């Protein structure tokens, strides 16, 4: 529903003909483009903010693994940035946002960014260059697979990891992105609301993570014999920069520097704060102490949950979304997951899957056309039907992501193997996969 925000900012100003030379003869920079400089500046900034979330995630996850695996997590995050960026430019953007084929996928018309130039694409963002929209979306395509790696941290073979991420971006992310956000996508046509990626990013990655944890199996020694996080300050640093980057993610999804961006910014911040506080209180009451890891997990859960709702709900309703996210994720991570016994190492499903599902449904409860006339009213604003539509979007995403991820892993397992040897796992992925050590023992 990104283009739903385009009610604002008409009329458009023409870009001064700064670029109107034949410097790049192969692209369409030569014509005068009706872009808005303010919107474009904000979207450039937002794209950079969202990019920063992937290295932030690297530190968030990296701090939580054992010291012998820190580099493997940082490496996997950076590798995804490189692989998915190239995939997106060459193929992925066309599959995700290219001209619709039966509501399911984009055509190959925009392969290699053919026709994607300085002129805005009014279907998606009428006031910024099409290239800016494209690479803003690129950052989402990058962070989504990166979220998954927390589920199989400390045990996946690096070569299989690279192949898996390339394939997953192509056959899972790009189609779901098309369904939800592209013109003609079937979930978008159902009227489902997803402001910044509750289904596309978080539920999608969360379900894929659950499948990865189940297919790869537990780490040796889980549960009970796994050392605690080796560097919690890294995790806090990562969570802090995720919060910071999330403003590009959510407020940037307004696709312009406008009041809707401000409203999404506010809802995002409030939900994160209320979820962090709620988790700390739950920890305090149930485990006797408020913990640092608990609090930052709560903040991330709140950010996840407000993602689909950010541009449709007011700040007071955002508080409830944050509180609900912390309660749902706390219950899942601290109680239900322990009983189920699978090893989702860094709780990707518990936070992004559960938080994402809660957020998608909560959007159906608290969305209001007073906040965003291009959206819809939710249950609490007189339209119970929206919850059902949201639920359908959740189910479609979860089923597709789950099945295709499973098939991909099984194919890769028979071709290359997906898990490192037992000895390599004990020695750690840093030395065995990358021949480097994160820390020295002597000065």
């Amino acid at each position, binding site marked *: 529903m990104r283009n739903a925000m385009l009610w604002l900012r008409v009329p458009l100003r023409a870009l001064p003909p700064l670029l109107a030379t034949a410097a790049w003869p192969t692209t369409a920079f030569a014509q005068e483009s009706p872009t808005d400089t303010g919107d474009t500046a904000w979207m450039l900034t937002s794209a950079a903010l969202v990019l920063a979330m992937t290295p932030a995630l690297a530190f968030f996850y990296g701090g939580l693994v054992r010291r012998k695996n820190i580099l493997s997590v940082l490496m996997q995050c950076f590798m995804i940035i490189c692989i998915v960026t190239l995939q997106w430019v060459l193929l992925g953007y066309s599959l995700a946002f290219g001209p619709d084929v039966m509501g399911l996928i984009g055509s190959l018309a925009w392969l290699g960014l053919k026709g994607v130039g300085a002129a805005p694409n009014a279907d998606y963002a009428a006031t910024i260059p099409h290239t800016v929209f494209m690479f803003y979306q690129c950052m989402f395509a990058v962070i989504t697979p990166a979220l998954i790696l927390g589920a199989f941290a400390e045990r996946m073979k690096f070569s299989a990891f690279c192949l898996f991420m390339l394939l997953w971006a192509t056959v899972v992310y790009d189609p779901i992105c098309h369904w939800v956000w592209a013109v003609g996508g079937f979930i978008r046509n159902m009227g489902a609301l997803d402001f910044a990626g509750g289904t596309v990013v978080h539920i999608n990655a969360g379900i894929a993570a659950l499948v990865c944890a189940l297919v790869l199996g537990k780490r040796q020694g889980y549960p009970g014999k796994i050392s605690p996080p080796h560097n919690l300050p890294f995790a806090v640093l990562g969570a802090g920069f995720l919060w910071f980057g999330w403003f590009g993610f959510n407020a940037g999804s307004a696709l312009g520097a406008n009041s809707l961006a401000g409203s999404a910014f506010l809802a995002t911040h409030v939900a994160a704060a209320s979820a962090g506080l709620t988790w700390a209180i739950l920890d305090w009451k149930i485990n006797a102490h408020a913990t640092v890891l608990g609090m930052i997990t709560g903040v991330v859960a709140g950010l996840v949950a407000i993602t689909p709702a950010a541009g449709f709900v007011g700040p007071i309703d955002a508080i409830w979304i944050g509180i609900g996210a912390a309660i749902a994720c706390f219950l899942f991570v601290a109680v239900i997951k322990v009983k189920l016994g699978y090893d989702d190492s860094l709780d990707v499903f518990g936070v992004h899957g559960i938080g994402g599902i809660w957020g998608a449904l909560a959007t159906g409860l608290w969305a209001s056309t007073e906040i965003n006339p291009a959206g819809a009213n939710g249950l609490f604003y007189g339209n119970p039907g929206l919850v059902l539509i949201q639920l359908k979007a959740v189910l479609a995403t979860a089923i597709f992501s789950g099945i295709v991820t499973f098939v991909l892993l099984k194919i890769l397992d028979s071709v290359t193997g997906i898990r490192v040897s037992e000895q390599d796992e004990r020695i750690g992925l840093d030395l065995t996969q990358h021949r480097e050590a994160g820390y020295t*023992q002597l000065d």
Partner: protein
Amino acid sequence: MKYIIAIIQADRLDEVLERLTEKEIHLVTVSNVLGRGRQKGIAEVYRSHTEAGSLLRKVKLEVAVNEEFVQPTIDAITQGARTGNIGDGKIFVLDLKQCVRIRTGETQNVAIG
């Protein structure tokens, strides 16, 4: 009383501790150490050129035991740490002259367990 020091591969630690527990040897001190033996270990790569690591990461275990536990301790460590490869490590057994439990002031055989 003997003081047993073992240098083992870091990734065998869990296994060794399990074997020691099976033989009811619970008191053990463990540290990360660097050292070198006869094998070459895992070389690290620094900005894309290989550097042979001269010192290897190992784990040192220290166990103080009464005479009747000496052989079980050696067996447990050997079983847990042996892979058959160069670099499995060594066990040193030293005579122990005195042992004092700080909390109670007890000494010798009573204090050790």
